[in-house]
């Protein structure tokens, strides 16, 4: 077992974990933050995407021990003071989700994308989310949602 300490959604967390425990499972099963989903086992689908020190990362391919000392934001940590994050608002507004399973990872990827490039072209958006699979929407409404959030030019964290 290994001791880790990290910050998740602004809260300090310490735990004693198996070295092989995946970060996704640590978040889901130890912290019960089940908004981070696991949709594959080969780092393709992106449903498990979280922010680690502000960068998007697939938490199914990182051991919890590798996140020792990191600052992590999950989908549950995105809304602040009871107000939806602009990308959450945008996905709702533009019908950017159907079954909702890929949505948390998709939104976290989009947060990182707009942080890097606040006014992406449609092509840049499609390339930016190419590491996240959605089987329901055909992506068009997801692209619309990211464009909507971008055009609102709200401060994107």
């Amino acid at each position, binding site marked *: 077992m290994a001791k880790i300490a990290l910050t998740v959604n602004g809260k300090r967390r310490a735990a004693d974990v198996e070295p*092989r425990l995946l970060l996704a499972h640590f978040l*889901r099963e130890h912290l019960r933050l089940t908004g981070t989903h696991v949709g594959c086992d080969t780092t393709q689908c992106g449903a498990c995407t979280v922010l680690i020190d502000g960068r998007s990362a697939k938490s199914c391919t990182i051991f919890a021990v590798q996140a020792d000392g990191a600052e992590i934001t999950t989908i*549950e940590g995105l809304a602040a003071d009871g107000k939806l994050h602009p990308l959450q608002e945008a996905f709702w507004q533009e019908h950017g989700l159907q079954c*909702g399973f890929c949505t948390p990872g998709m939104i976290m990827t989009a947060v990182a994308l707009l942080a890097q490039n606040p006014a992406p072209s449609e092509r840049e958006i*499609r390339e930016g989310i190419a590491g996240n*699979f959605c089987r329901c929407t*055909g992506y068009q*409404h997801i692209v619309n949602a990211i464009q909507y959030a971008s055009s609102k030019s709200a401060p994107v964290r």
Partner: protein
Amino acid sequence: MATAPMLPKLVGQRVKRREDPRLIQGRGTYVDDIALVGMQHVVFKRSDVAHGRIRAIDTTAAAAMDGVEAVFTGADIAKILPPMPIGTPFPSPEHRAVAVDTVRFGGEPVAVVVARDRYVARDAADAITVEIDPLPAVVDVEQAMTGKPTVIHPDFANNLAVALVPGGTGVTPDGKVDDSAIDAAFAKAEVVISQRMVNHRLAPSAIEPRGVVAHYEPGKGTMTIWSSTQNPHILRTFIAALNGLGQDQVRAIAPEVGGGFGAKINIYAEEYVCSAISKALGIPVKWNEDRTEAFVATTHGRDIIGYVDLAAKRDGTLLGLKMRLIADIGAYNMLLTAAIPTLTQMMANATYNIPAIRTTLTEVFTNKTPTDAYRGAGRPEATYFVERAMDMLARELKMDPAELRRKNFIQPHQFPFATQSGAVYDSGDYAKALDLALKKANWEQLKRERDAARAEGRLVGLGLSMYVEVCGLGPSAALPTGGWEHAQVTVERDGRISATTGASPHGQGNETTFAQMLADQFGVPIEHVTILHGDTGVVKQGIGTFGSRSQAVGGTAIHLAGSKVKAKMGKFAAAMMEASEEDLVFENGTIAVKGAPASAKPFAAIAAYAYVPVPLPPGMEPGLSDEAFWEPANNTYPFGCHISMLEIDRQTGEPTLLKLVAVDDAGNLINPLIVEGQIHGGLAQGIGQAMIEEVVYSEDGQLLTGSFMDYALPRAIDFPRFELDATVTPTPVNPLGAKGVGEAGTLGSTPCVVSAAVDALSEFGVKHVDMMLRPEKLWRVIQGGRS
């Protein structure tokens, strides 16, 4: 008295979904999010050979591991679980949830571990040693039909699961076949198109893998099962039956379900095994599928060969169609496996007047994962075979593909139209959809653009496809589960409305669309309406969500139950207000006498009166709750036209989809925003099949596309922006006029993309290319080989 703001009518509006606030905040509860006290984890040990006899299984090391609760072999499971049933009236070999002596596909379960957590359970499964004597495997469906090199099930000679089902002109319900009409049609033919086409195997790939939590409570003798399923009521039926319980003793819950696409209709081995293990051990257990596991353990889709012959006159008039179908169903019959290809037969008539049709269907076992429903389920296959043949005919006759189709359309005055293949189309105006698609795509301009690109040496092609599908399934005569749907609508004591539906959604947005309907019906704010679903403990009856039936069948049940409650509420209001119930209007959160707004009583006040009815109006019972079972007299038949433009790189063979225009007619629409989302998703899957998705096996039955690294699931960069439009031809089958739209996108898109590729390659004399459009395959055509 202050005037409250008028409530807008919501049906037909682009209402934002009510499901979304929880889902965009990570607050939905999917099966894998459920944790029960004392719950243990299940992992399946699976065969890594496609066909063989189990000689020995050693579970000693696994059972001895710290944290392991129990280990079961197939023989152990057979003691607590009967063989798995199917849902179609076809003969089927015995199918054990966990193989007892023979494995018939790679990934078939051979043992089960129950342990403290998923990591320990996986370790233990790895510690089980299984010795299997390999048998020859067969993966080529036409090879399998020879019975060589192996017969997979001894009672099914030559691996024929279904030897031959005839359909079309001159076939009587008892199976007698009269070929005179089809023979005469082909005797008159001036041109015949003949082509073997492969509609290949796909992995449905909902992003949420399947999962089960089963909790048998020995004290109560009841079972609760949570599953990522499209149809909890059907699940309850089968789980009860196989565990020796009554349906009153089983509660099945479909919590948030992360996509289904047909693959979560089937009731799976893992659901049966988890329920039986929970009952045997008296503890709650959970199983959650890995993606790699999903590729072998979740049913595949399509995989059917069509030998298509299309007879016509040289002016393009169709005379006859023959379609010989050979379906590769994999190693076993699952719930609906055998029925899916019969829908291909049923829809062979497409959108055309075809004087004579003959279909035959043969279904064949191979050493692969079983097939079952996948989005479209039989109809995309029919559309693909007919529309590709139509495209080949247009090319042969040098006709515009649009004009060939127009010449042969079933005309609006012919509806209801009894087809040669056994359907009765409800309503349609195919030329209208074609015309709108041509206009939207700017067809003549597109042809000029294509020709200009060709003049520059680019390989650019256009494709066009019509489709008609069968939705809103369907009368009970056509569905062994029953073809109805159920709803219960209750106006609560505080004037809010709760309604249950047996249509169990997994992304379709029924919580929004059904609430739109009830809000309009009762004249109340949508915020006052709650739609409950997916729990047999709450939803009294139901069938489920498949065959694009939620709105047409489930929505109608909601409407009818709402009508009953509204009528009763009108009687209470009439008594309270001393008015005639015919004169009452429900609007704006009130009930008022027509033309006398001052008479308005709050909706909630009438509701309160109905639950404390002093005085009780004569002949009435208290309360405001009623139900409806809606059984449609027929299916619905949505239709449309899809057009695409595609370019192939002359150097590499890589295809790029440049344009996709889709005009769809799903009848009346409740929420166009949700409908667009459904069509986008269907298009993505239809295009995915045409261009990049394919399940591939090696000759010895090893799945070569067993992960997302090898199976190309479409990404955002694989698509252009889809251009949609709609015509509206309501169905007379239900009072909503709604036809259904969940699968439509997969029908027209696949053939229209393949036809565009063939058009792009026309300079090489190509008439047909089988899917998927692998660059290497196209490159070979460009290099002078023929597909």
